[in-house]
């Protein structure tokens, strides 16, 4: 069983709340949900925003495609935005009170979309009104559930004693969600638990909304499906990617997080901040005497400071990270070069978004792979590692923190807008799989000078100010083992080689299964190659595409050249990426010497969907080698 759904309406008027209500309600019936949010870079203003997702009995839930089974719309604008995302058999719930409106009635609609819609109506010979598009959809097999929302809500309000227009307007969320829940055959209790989750603490508000839901559910008799109460037999969590990242940091021992506000990164740091102080586990050794422990979550004045403060935290001995996105990451370039030179282990959680420049701050892209690989002047060791789903986001946060401490290099953890705004009801990660590897600091019995950069070890013993009783110098200038400035060519050569030897060390120590994963038939002649958050869509598509392999690359630097070369040897390759240049294809050619057969690219700010992967693969089979994907859900 798989149901794709969509909830859409004007931004800032409850679409997000309604989505939480809906997802939690479905989750409370025992199902898994895999959804993502699409929105403009505004708070209010009425641009169209929506949540699209899938409901499933098992996990991983299939990634959504380019159309949905059920669209719940708040207004006519939402109907028009999604005319092309409905197909035969889809259900559309909409407000008939907006029947007479046209694309031009909605001033917050993109002009380009309004034109496309009007042309479409003209070509198909119908009036460009909401009613016109709805009728077109009906004629093409879409089930239409049209109701006069405000009329019903006013009547329900009268029944439960609410007449204030402001209050009534707030019921729209619950009203729409309840219609959707009824169509899925959910019970009032499921909706009630969603209401309780989404609307918080006010008992009166919750009671009113439960009544609204109960009345609204009576208005529909049709069923898209009948979701029976299930027992998933496992603990499930409802969270998003930003949150999964923050929980990973906390569990993984990160105790120092800095940020400067930026979309879509800050919710990572702010979740880290919000959850403080953290409950101490029973088996916490000497910490067990504390009920809770804290950390430093720090809002910096800019990203220049955010990375520097995080590195300061690492120098003092805390596991440190900063969360940012492209524009902020650009400001961190000089500091990352310093982290390489001064040998400071710090994590940058890079939530990529669509650039260049301010670009589309709330939209998806994988454009910063090359930038991550080559950021910072001079040559220095670093790690660039990507996560592809929420479980990976959680566990990889722990891994990258381990590596930053072990190798004392900057670690760039690539995640993206798609992951940040993925909302999932999924199995709780198995915490027993967590392995934290710390490095104990040197502690001298008495204060003494110590070498911060001894030549006989690739990674020096860990010296911490105030803890090691060591006097030591860290230096951005080329230096000798003591950290004093040094430009003697012989010493410079040794220090350079010592730093760069970390790359070999990293390559040798990190096991292959953490670098790449391979899915599908071992001997497939054709292989899709991808990285990051395209993973769920590609994996879902593999079910449909027989005899194709999927090479999923997580370690982007040091690039696992030998492993990748081995997997791709003698096979036809299709690289699928959320960028224009085919950046993974470029570095595969550069590092592994493998010439990609074809590249499928999508750079319109929207993630790659399951349908995109299937369609791109079909085109690849016909011999296309640069496949531009333009779908828009």
């Amino acid at each position, binding site marked *: 069983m798989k149901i794709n759904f969509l909830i859409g309406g004007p931004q800032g008027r409850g679409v997000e709340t309604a989505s939480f209500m809906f997802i939690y309600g479905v989750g409370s019936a025992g199902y898994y949900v895999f959804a993502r949010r699409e929105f403009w870079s505004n708070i209010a203003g009425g641009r169209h925003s929506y949540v699209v997702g899938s409901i499933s009995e098992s996990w991983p839930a299939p990634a959504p495609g380019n159309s949905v089974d059920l669209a719940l719309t708040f207004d006519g604008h939402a109907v028009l935005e999604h005319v092309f995302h409905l197909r035969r058999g889809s259900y559309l719930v909409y407000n008939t009170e907006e029947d007479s409106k046209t694309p031009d009635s909605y001033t917050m609609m993109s002009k380009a979309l309004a034109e496309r819609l009007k042309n479409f109506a003209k070509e198909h010979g119908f009036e460009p009104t909401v009613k016109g598009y709805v009728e077109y959809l009906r004629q093409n097999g879409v089930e239409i559930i049209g109701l006069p929302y405000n009329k019903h809500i006013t009547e329900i309000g009268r029944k439960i004693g609410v007449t204030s227009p402001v209050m009534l307007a707030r019921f729209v969320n619950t009203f729409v969600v309840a219609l959707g829940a009824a169509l899925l055959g959910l019970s009032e209790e499921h909706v009630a638990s969603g209401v309780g989750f989404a609307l918080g603490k006010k008992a009166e508000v919750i009671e009113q909304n439960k009544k609204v839901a109960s009345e609204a559910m009576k208005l529909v008799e049709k069923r898209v499906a009948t979701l029976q109460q299930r027992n998933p037999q496992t603990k499930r*969590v409802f969270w998003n990617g930003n949150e999964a990242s923050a929980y990973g940091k*906390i569990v*993984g*021992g990160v*105790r*120092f997080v800095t940020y400067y506000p930026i979309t879509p990164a800050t919710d990572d740091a702010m979740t880290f901040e919000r959850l*403080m102080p*953290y*409950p101490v*586990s029973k*088996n*916490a*050794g*000497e*910490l067990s005497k504390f009920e809770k*422990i*804290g*950390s*430093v979550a*720090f809002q*910096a004045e800019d990203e*220049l*400071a955010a990375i*520097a*403060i*995080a*590195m*300061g*935290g*690492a*120098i*003092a*001995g*805390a596991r*440190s990270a900063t969360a940012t996105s492209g524009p902020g990451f650009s400001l961190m370039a*000089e500091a990352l070069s*310093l982290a390489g030179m*001064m040998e400071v282990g710090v994590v940058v959680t890079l939530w990529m978004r669509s650039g260049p420049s301010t670009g589309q701050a709330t939209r998806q892209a994988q454009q910063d792979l090359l930038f991550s690989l080559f950021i910072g002047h001079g040559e220095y060791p670093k790690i660039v590692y990507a996560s592809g789903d929420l479980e990976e986001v959680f566990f990889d946060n722990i891994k990258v923190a381990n590596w930053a401490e072990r190798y004392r290099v900057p670690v760039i953890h690539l995640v993206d807008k798609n992951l940040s705004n993925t909302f999932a*009801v999924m199995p*709780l990660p198995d915490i027993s799989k*967590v392995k*934290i590897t710390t490095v104990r600091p040197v502690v001298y019995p*008495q*204060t003494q*000078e110590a070498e911060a950069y001894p030549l006989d070890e690739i990674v020096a013993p860990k010296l*911490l*100010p*105030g*803890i*090691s009783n*060591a*006097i*030591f*110098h*860290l*230096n*951005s*200038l080329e230096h000798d083992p003591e*950290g004093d*400035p040094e430009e003697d060519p012989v010493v410079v050569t040794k220090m350079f080689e010592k730093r760069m030897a970390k790359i070999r060390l990293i390559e040798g120590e990190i096991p292959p299964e953490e670098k790449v994963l391979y899915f599908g038939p071992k001997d497939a002649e054709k292989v899709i190659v991808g990285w990051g958050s395209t993973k769920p869509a590609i994996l879902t598509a593999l079910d449909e595409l027989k005899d194709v392999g999927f090479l999923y690359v997580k370690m982007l630097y040091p690039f696992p050249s030998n492993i990748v070369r081995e997997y791709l040897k003698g096979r036809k390759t299709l690289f699928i990426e959320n960028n224009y240049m085919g950046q993974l294809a470029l570095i595969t050619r550069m590092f592994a010497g493998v010439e990609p057969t074809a590249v499928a690219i999508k750079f319109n700010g929207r993630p790659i969907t399951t349908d995109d992967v299937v369609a791109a693969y079909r085109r690849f089979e016909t011999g296309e080698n640069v496949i531009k994907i333009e779908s828009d859900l």
Partner: protein
Amino acid sequence: MQQLVKRTPADYRWVRPPEWCPGCGHFGVLQSLYNAFAELNLDPSKIVLVSGIGCSSRLPHFVRTTSVHAIHGRAIPYALGIKLANPSLEVVVVGGDGDLMAIGGNHLLHLGRRNVDMTVILMDNSVYGLTRGQAGPTLPPGLKVKAIPKANPQGEINPLLLALTAGFTFIARGYSYDIKYTTKLIVEAIRHKGSAFVQVYSPCVTYNNIMTREWYEKRIYKLEEADPSWDPVVHDEKEVDTKIRKALDKIVERDRLPLGIFYKNELVPTFEERYESIYDPNYRALPPALQPIEVDGKPVVDFEKLIADKIL
């Protein structure tokens, strides 16, 4: 066990000698710092001296303490990170006017409003020495120091005015050739609870041929000598406005340049105190740098409890 020792200024001298031009004002700041550390008898492994880039930012290389020589303009945020992760450390930033007032000016502002318990020493010579004499942000307009092709068309920043506005709770000015006096100011700055800012006039003998030793010595005077009743300390919350106005009057003097402590207010809570009361009652007892994070590789945080409100 650390031995109880009484350290002397020489205990803070690094094995390699300073590499500044003979007669450079910075020698005076360096000696004052040695003296101050000795007077406070600080353990050199518990001091972290942080700098950015420039002639003055080389200072940590000549000091026998732990140090971080970072990148241009960012000494303050590096120092801040170190201090916040382990508040028991004595963290001191040194830098020039280019480093702290120009490329790093934003960080100075924001340190002030945070009132983190650390010290910033500005070694002010109004030129970029290490790149051979360009105009620094404290160079007054119309002056043509020898390496710049024409007179300075840009106005100057008054560092103390900026520091006062930013919220520093200790504001002082010294003169590098008066080592005894500068020592006293640095000692007071380090002892101060909160963000301390000390501007030290530290003439560049090579590139600033206008603001020379003679130039300064014609203008400087000491606040407490000119006015024996001078008291920059805020003893009561009610005095804050009066003391700020008094400090301001002195800070804006241009023809004569007062030295001394302009303002000192320990009634403002430090960032550390605020953080402890708002976020984490154990912050200073168990700061990030001192926390164990695992037992046999397993997390010390109870994940299921932490995430309880997200579990279905």
